[in-house]
């Protein structure tokens, strides 16, 4: 039986993870992801979730244990944020290189220096080169849904890459929205049991995690890149399957155009800021402004072809960017500019929301007004 509950994004993630039946959960708490391991611990203690929790002593050990779990052919799950993700940095490409279909939730929180526990995308955006598929969520329902899709995407035999499901710290992790928890039988039909071909087995000894010299190493990376590119179509298909099964879809699975039919200008956003952006969009369109919105769900693989299609009639595109690549401006902005190089649309970036600075309607409106004037973007402070 499906059930709609008013829950936080953290609980939504925990509920979804539970339904995907991971067998081992290496967990280490860090604000604002703590509610996820806490909820999962409660579920295990109550016998609702048949999993082993490993209370590791650091995030580096959490992701390392997860590597060991997948190495043994078993589905796992973990969650982290900010410094925790940064501490995991070394191991992220190792999991991708091993082609383990790990799934991890990240509660987006800024990377320190100074210390700050509030939201921006500097943690996950700093890891976008490491061979993990990155999917961002606008609200708690999407958080729940994306976890279900993440396992199916990761474990697809044409992909076999790990997936990071990103939800904005505090905005989604700690705020309550109605979320439909689907019937377990339907989830099982959507996501079958994990039965990998290769795992540590004394009956069939195999070597995992070798050293690869220069004459063979590049082929591993090329295969990962090819898998990332193949993933675009597969994520689209899984998004279609999700809609068939559960009645919800997220654009084409990677990107969505909102009110673009007659739009001359649009903002591109990722994550929870879309809620505010949609409201601002409504206000501006009510005033007759020809503006639209693009929701980017997948930062990796970046859906270049669809992005080009969606922006083909635009004069200007502004990127709401929650990570500054210090020394060269907005990280997402530069990715989008590169994707649209040679296209007609003028792309500019707005650094916003760093360290939990609110991106309110006034700031979004300022961004729209700037691109309508054809001016360069700025830091929205």
């Amino acid at each position, binding site marked *: 039986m499906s059930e709609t509950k008013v829950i936080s994004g953290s609980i939504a993630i925990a509920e979804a993870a539970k339904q995907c039946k991971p067998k081992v959960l290496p967990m280490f708490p860090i604000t604002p992801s703590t509610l996820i391991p806490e909820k999962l611990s409660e579920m295990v203690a109550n016998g609702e979730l048949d999993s*082993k929790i490993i209370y590791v002593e650091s995030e580096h050990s959490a992701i390392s244990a997860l590597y*060991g779990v997948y190495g043994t052919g078993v589905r796992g799950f973990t969650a982290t944020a900010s410094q925790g993700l940064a501490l995991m940095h070394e*191991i992220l490409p190792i999991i991708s290189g091993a082609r383990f279909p790990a799934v991890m939730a990240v509660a987006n929180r800024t990377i320190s220096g100074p210390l700050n526990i509030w939201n921006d995308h500097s943690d996950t955006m700093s890891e976008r080169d490491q061979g993990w598929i990155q999917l961002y969520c606008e609200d708690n329902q999407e958080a729940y849904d994306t976890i279900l899709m993440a396992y199916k995407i990761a474990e697809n035999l044409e992909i076999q890459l790990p997936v990071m499901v990103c939800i904005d710290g505090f905005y989604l992790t700690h705020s309550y929205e109605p979320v439909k928890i689907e019937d377990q039988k339907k989830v099982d039909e959507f996501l079958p049991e994990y039965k990998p071909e290769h795992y540590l087995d004394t009956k069939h000894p195999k070597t995992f995690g070798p050293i690869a010299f220069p004459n063979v190493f590049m082929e591993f990376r090329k295969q990962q890149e090819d898998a990332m590119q193949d993933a675009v179509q597969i994520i689209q298909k899984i998004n279609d399957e999700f809609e068939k099964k559960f009645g919800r879809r997220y654009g084409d699975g990677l990107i969505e155009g909102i009110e673009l039919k007659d739009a001359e200008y649009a903002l591109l956003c990722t994550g929870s800021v879309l809620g505010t952006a949609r409201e601002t969009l409504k206000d501006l369109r009510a005033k007759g402004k020809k503006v639209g919105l693009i929701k980017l769900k997948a930062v990796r693989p970046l859906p270049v072809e669809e992005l080009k299609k969606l922006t083909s009639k635009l004069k200007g595109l502004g990127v709401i960017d929650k990570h500054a690549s210090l020394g060269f401006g907005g990280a997402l902005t530069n990715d989008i500019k590169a994707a649209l190089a040679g296209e007609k649309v003028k792309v500019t970036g707005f650094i916003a929301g760093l360290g939990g600075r609110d991106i309110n309607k006034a700031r979004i409106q300022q961004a729209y007004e700037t691109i309508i004037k054809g001016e360069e973007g700025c830091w929205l402070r």
Partner: protein
Amino acid sequence: MAILGIEEKEFFASGHRSCAGCGEALALRHILKTCGEKTIVVQATGCMEVVSSAYPETAWELPWIHCAFENASAVASGVRAALETKGDKETNILTLGGDGASFDIGLGSLSGALERGTKFLYICTDNEAYMNTGIQRSGATFPYANTTTTPDGKIIHGKSEPKKPLPFIVAAHGARYVATASVMNLFDLKKKVQKALAVNGPTFITVFVPCIPGWKIETNATIDVAKKAFETNVYPLYEIEEGVLKINQKPDEKKPVEEYLKMQGRFKHITPEIAAKIQKYVDDRMEFLESVDGKKIFDPIL
């Protein structure tokens, strides 16, 4: 067919790339023989990982997994939990690291795995420096040893600090079986591995393994140097079982440490003055060990 109790079946194929005379490779072969077929090996980055796993070849005839330098214990925790969810309580997990991985960078993850009571046998092959990266000092480096980061210079003469007492650190966590072993006595090593595998919890053995290029010794000197380390009390052999320390073997005749030092290029700079300091260091450590021999000095909580 076992010869003198040593099983014939190999789990570490020849053709790997270790140096001629490598003490670590020799010890590893024998550890694997004792562990047997129902074993998964979790390995930290280091010489053995690098010499044995050059894609697309492998020397491993057991299931083997390597991840990074400091996290073999955490990976092993994941493997053990996953095996348990499959209903497998039989398979041994052998977690391997050099002194770099175990004494230093991996100490945190080792501590965590011990605290959680992860059922594995952790073996640290101790050649007293970060050998894989070119002989830099580690917390296990013997005092006054010449390494590339503790060279003998005009003002400083080799490594200044004492050797970190890792076996005691592990025993203090409450592990029920901890031991020191040496490549120069493979029968003693085999017995210790067997004892460790029989414990339902985390266990730990350091194995003394001379390194040819690191210690600047001849390729055929491995066993002799290890024997001399034992005879001079530089590397005593003991077990800590259920918290009780027992020196399990003593040299018939204790030799002066100079005999050990003069066998190795890494100590060629040692003057009689420094040799006296080293003798005192060795004697003090042995005096401490003898003072607790037969006593319960740790609480075996795991």
